[in-house]
């Protein structure tokens, strides 16, 4: 599953962070843009499997989803993913490479293909909370 590759990227990034910052990672906040249509259950399962036997085994992963919002660069109109109809085949293409959206979507108001994704693209780490470990004992 593609979710595994992204979960692996999250785990590797946080593990790298722990190498550079002393302390125990207690919480990781992850933002998930809805454009990529991540299957959250698979993503969570992959994270749980990947953190086993690592310093992140007891880390709490907190997820927040963000709607995908687009803005037309010609007329300024803004719209969301839920405002347009895309086939399952196209959604799957966007799932793998979110920028594929530019091949299939036009501004619903003026028809321009010149638009930008304002937010809601994919997976990002918002915050890594570290608890200092008292190493005097």
């Amino acid at each position, binding site marked *: 599953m593609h979710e595994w590759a992204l979960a692996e990227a999250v785990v590797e990034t946080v593990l790298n962070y722990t190498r550079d910052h002393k302390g125990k990672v207690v919480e990781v906040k992850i933002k998930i843009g809805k454009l990529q249509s991540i299957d959250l259950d698979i993503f969570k399962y992959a994270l749980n499997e990947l953190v086993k036997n690592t310093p992140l085994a007891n880390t709490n992963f907190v997820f927040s989803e963000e709607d995908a919002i687009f803005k037309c660069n010609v007329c300024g109109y803004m719209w969301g993913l839920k405002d347009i109809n895309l086939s399952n085949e196209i959604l799957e293409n966007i799932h*793998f*490479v979110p920028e594929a959206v530019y091949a299939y979507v036009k501004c619903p108001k003026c028809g321009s293909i010149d638009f930008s994704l304002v937010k809601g693209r994919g997976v990002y780490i918002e915050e890594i909370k570290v608890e200092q470990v008292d190493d005097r004992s």
Partner: protein
Amino acid sequence: MIDPRLTVINKRLKDVRNVIAIGSGKGGVGKSLIATSLALVMARKGYSVGLMDLDFNCPSCHIILGIDLQNIYPEEEKGVIPPQVHGIKFMSIAYYTKDEPTPLRGSDISAAITELFAITRWNKLDFLFIDLPPGTSDELLDVLRLIEKQKVIAITTPHILTIKAVEKFMKIVNSMNREIIGIIENMSLSKTPMSVKLAKDFNTRILGVIPYIPAIENYIGSPVKLLSSDFAKYLAETANRILDVFTD
């Protein structure tokens, strides 16, 4: 906000022995045809080879390879596995955008490059060829920055405007501390390549001089014909010189 994908890009390439980016700075010099043909020639020599088309606005390697985008799609397995096409593992955004125009802006190109490198599982390869898009902007800077083990081949034609653009391209590559292993002069007009001075100025070598071959249009879309063409014969010599570089 941290982009986690950046962490795994070089991990995905850990079993790839050599990464070679084919670029120019100028469009229309034959980068895609040379990158694709070199991949095919190396595969025919028995090496395990991958090819990645990074021209997101106008990908063309799949056209050279004659791929039917409706019937070939990367397999999903903890990421994506590039389909094996004519003996090479081939990855392109075209699998996902089909042949639709995809007008990406710079930041979108950067995001798509990061995504493809982060999710593609090449596994073991002797050579991964990257077909860089024309120009010296975001895509070039991203690839030079992100891919640690790459070396670069510059493609030029015997025209002063191209030579000047390739010179800029090579300066950028040098400034990013990536090694230029050589220059290929394509559509050459004489036995004395114009690119000799360029190679000398950048302390690198001429890897190949390919004359203008009008019949090349007949081989687009047919790797079998392409491999039996004069174009491929010239590139077989270039491939040998590349192998010498990596075995020196």
